[in-house]
């Protein structure tokens, strides 16, 4: 009768040890750079596959007015506290200028009125937050593609970077300032706009006044609010901590199509 008892004890001991080892090694595993680099491979695969199967121009679904959310949540910064931004907001953004520069032939400096006069698009789309919730709103804004064409992208340009007025984390080196980078192809997608209007009213401060990026086929954190400056760049390694965005620097995926 000892055999089953021994076996059971051995099993129980083995399982307890395995569970203990699993928990201890879990922490090591989740913090290992090699493991994380391997796991990130899936994100590159998703990006390539989406490029192949979703295509460059497939449109995100657009909705009826009746679908608009009455309780669209404002996430991240809801009112940038810098003196510069507060002064611009107090003046109704009359003094605000959007700089479009970097790897372009003709840098632009655009007022809100200039943007409103540029080729525009209006769309009622769903905003998918990385946290899991979604809300629907109507957006109107200047299409980014024609603006970049006007500025004239240099051939080495590979990404478009957005620099924002909000600081989410106070750091000495400024790496807590919000910024984002997106692929050129996504910048020229017909639904990619610099929105200055939300639900038929000027874009509220909580949602990124005077303009926020709308990148409808990707997650909310890609859609930078309070955009002050846009640059065409060939690499984002020298920006922030080098991962292509405020949240990307803190472990989020750069592509964010899932």
């Amino acid at each position: 009768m000892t055999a089953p008892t021994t076996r059971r004890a051995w099993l129980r001991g083995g399982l307890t040890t395995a569970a203990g080892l699993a928990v201890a090694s879990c922490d090591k595993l989740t913090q290992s750079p090699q493991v994380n680099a391997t796991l990130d491979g899936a994100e590159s695969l998703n990006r390539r596959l989406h490029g192949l199967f979703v295509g460059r121009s497939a449109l995100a679904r657009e909705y009826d007015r009746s679908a608009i959310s009455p309780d669209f949540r404002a996430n991240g910064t809801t009112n940038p506290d810098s003196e510069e931004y507060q002064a611009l907001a107090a003046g109704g953004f009359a003094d605000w200028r959007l700089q479009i520069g970097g790897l372009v032939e003709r840098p632009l400096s655009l007022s809100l009125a200039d943007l409103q006069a540029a080729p525009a698009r209006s769309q009622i789309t769903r905003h998918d937050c990385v946290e899991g919730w979604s809300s629907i709103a109507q957006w109107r804004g200047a299409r980014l593609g024609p603006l970049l064409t006007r500025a004239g992208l240099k051939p080495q340009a590979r990404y478009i970077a957005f620099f924002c007025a909000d600081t989410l984390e106070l750091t000495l080196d400024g790496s807590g300032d919000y910024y984002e980078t997106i692929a050129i192809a996504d910048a020229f997608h017909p639904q990619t706009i610099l929105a200055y209007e939300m639900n038929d009213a000027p874009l509220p401060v909580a949602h990124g006044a005077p303009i926020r990026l709308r990148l409808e086929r990707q997650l909310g954190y890609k859609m930078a609010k309070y955009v002050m400056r846009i640059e065409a760049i060939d690499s984002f390694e020298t920006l922030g901590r080098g991962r292509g965005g405020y949240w990307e620097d803190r472990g989020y995926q750069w592509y964010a199509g899932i």
Partner: protein
Amino acid sequence: MPLDKPLEGGRLLVFRHPAVVRITHWVNLASLVVLLLSGLQILCSHPAFYWGETARFAEPFAAIVSEMGNDGEPRSRLIAPGLNIDTTGLLGASKNADGLMTSRAIPHWLTLPGELDLGAGRRWHFFFAWLFVLNGALYLATGLLSRRLQRELVPTRDQLSHIGHALRDHLRLRFARGEEARRYNVLQKLTYLPVVFGLLPLMVLTGLAMSPAVDARLHLAMVLGGRQTARTLHFLCASGLVAFVVVHVGMVVLAGPVNELRSMITGWFVIKPAEEDTP
């Protein structure tokens, strides 16, 4: 197919599971464990569920709600249809690895990684989602092409007509002997079939539906009734899988864990001789 090997006492060693079934079974288990734990990590960032396309934040279908008590300690409740219970200590507020009470939907020992880290949770989730999908595709392709799945999982007419008998045997924990033990009984088939062709594919579909990029091409969210419906179904299907695993492991333990585990590791399964008095 390897031949049966007779053992003492009229028992018979039969070859039950080919290598591809055994390997995909364990890879599936490993990927489901990682997907569950990293999925619970992702859930921590917004522990509320809704139906339809968008979140109506004030009226979730179900939610884990945390708030700070007067004593400075977090309190939490689980709210679901017909349910509003204090879950402090488990869901919504639990002790972290250092023993401090913290506001978090799922306790640290049930999430991957243990600390709150949405980006890392998503990294694990999407990597193992690929492993799960490729492994599942291998299982389905080999099973369907060899017609093993049709043979093993579809109940026969005869089995279906004796389902009441099978249910009584099952409840009395009388497990099949003799020739009957060479195949799955009707209750196993009626469980495995909807898990393999229902719950597991639904996990993939509801997961894909939540991707805004995939949604631009396939409109899966609309087909399923909205992105938040897809997310809620994703969670409910995962809960269904957890329930399945609990019962599945329970049955393995009751039916003879050594024999069952050996059959899923080596392929060889011992069947006991049929009893004379079996009706």
